C-alpha cells in the first residue's frame, strides 16, 4: 500500500496515457479520460494485465486479480479515466478494493 500523493497521481496519469498511446499506436494527444479503451482504441485485457504489472512493480503492490475482478464487477472500468481511478485505488487500498 502506498500513499497517493500528488506526485503519485501525476506518475500514474502519465504512465497510463503513455502506455495506451504506445500499445494502441495512437497519438497521445488524441486520448482523454473519456476514451473508451476497447471501443475507441482497440485495447484488450492483456494490456490491462501488463499495465497492472507495471504498477505492481513500481509501488510494490500486493493485489490479486480476483480482488480487481470483484471491484470491476460493481464498478465497470471501460475508460482511461476509470482505469486511472482504479489504479489510484489499488495503490491506496490494495486487496481491500474487493470490499468496496
Amino acid at each position, binding site marked *: 500500500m502506498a500513499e497517493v500523493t500528488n506526485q503519485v497521481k501525476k506518475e500514474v496519469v502519465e504512465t497510463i496515457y503513455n502506455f495506451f498511446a504506445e500499445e494502441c499506436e495512437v497519438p497521445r494527444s488524441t486520448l482523454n479520460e473519456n476514451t473508451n479503451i476497447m471501443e475507441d482504441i482497440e485495447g484488450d*485485457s*492483456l494490456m490491462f*494485465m*501488463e499495465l*497492472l*504489472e*507495471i504498477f*505492481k*512493480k513500481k509501488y510494490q503492490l500486493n493485489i*490479486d*486479480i*480476483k480482488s*480487481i*475482478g470483484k471491484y*470491476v*464487477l460493481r464498478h*465497470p*472500468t471501460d475508460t482511461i479515466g476509470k482505469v486511472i481511478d482504479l489504479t489510484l485505488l489499488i495503490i491506496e487500498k490494495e486487496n481491500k478494493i474487493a470490499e468496496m
Partner: protein
Amino acid sequence: MKENKIIGCGIDIENIKRFERILGNQDYESFMRDVFTEREIRINSAFRAKERFTLGFCAKEALFKSFGISWVNSPITWKDVELIFTADKMLNQNRVILHGFALKYFLKEKIKQILFESIIEENYARFSVILVR
C-alpha cells in the same frame, strides 16, 4: 433423439511478439503466475515458449468469450482454463482442461463437448472454440 446444439463460440488472436516481450522481462513474473498454472508454466517453457504461452492465453480468452463471461464479470479466473500441450516439441497437440468456476459452468450448462482449433500463423496465435450441448 436430441440433436447436438451449438451454444457458444469464441475466438482470440494475439501477437506472439507481445508474449516474447513478457517472457523476456522478469517484471512480469507475477503476471505469469496470475495467468498460468504451474503445470502450464513448466510445459510451455520446455519448447517454443512464446508460441505456447500466446496460444495458452488465447485459449483462456476464447473460452471466456464462448461462455459469455470474463474475470471482470464473474468468479472465473485465468487459471480455471488450462491449455496443456500433450506432445514434446509440438504445438498442435493440446487439450483444454477446466477447473473451478469454468468447470462448474461447463457442467451447469450441460456442455457435452468443447471443439477447438489452435493455429500459429507468422506472428500471430489464434484459438477458436465451439461449445456443443
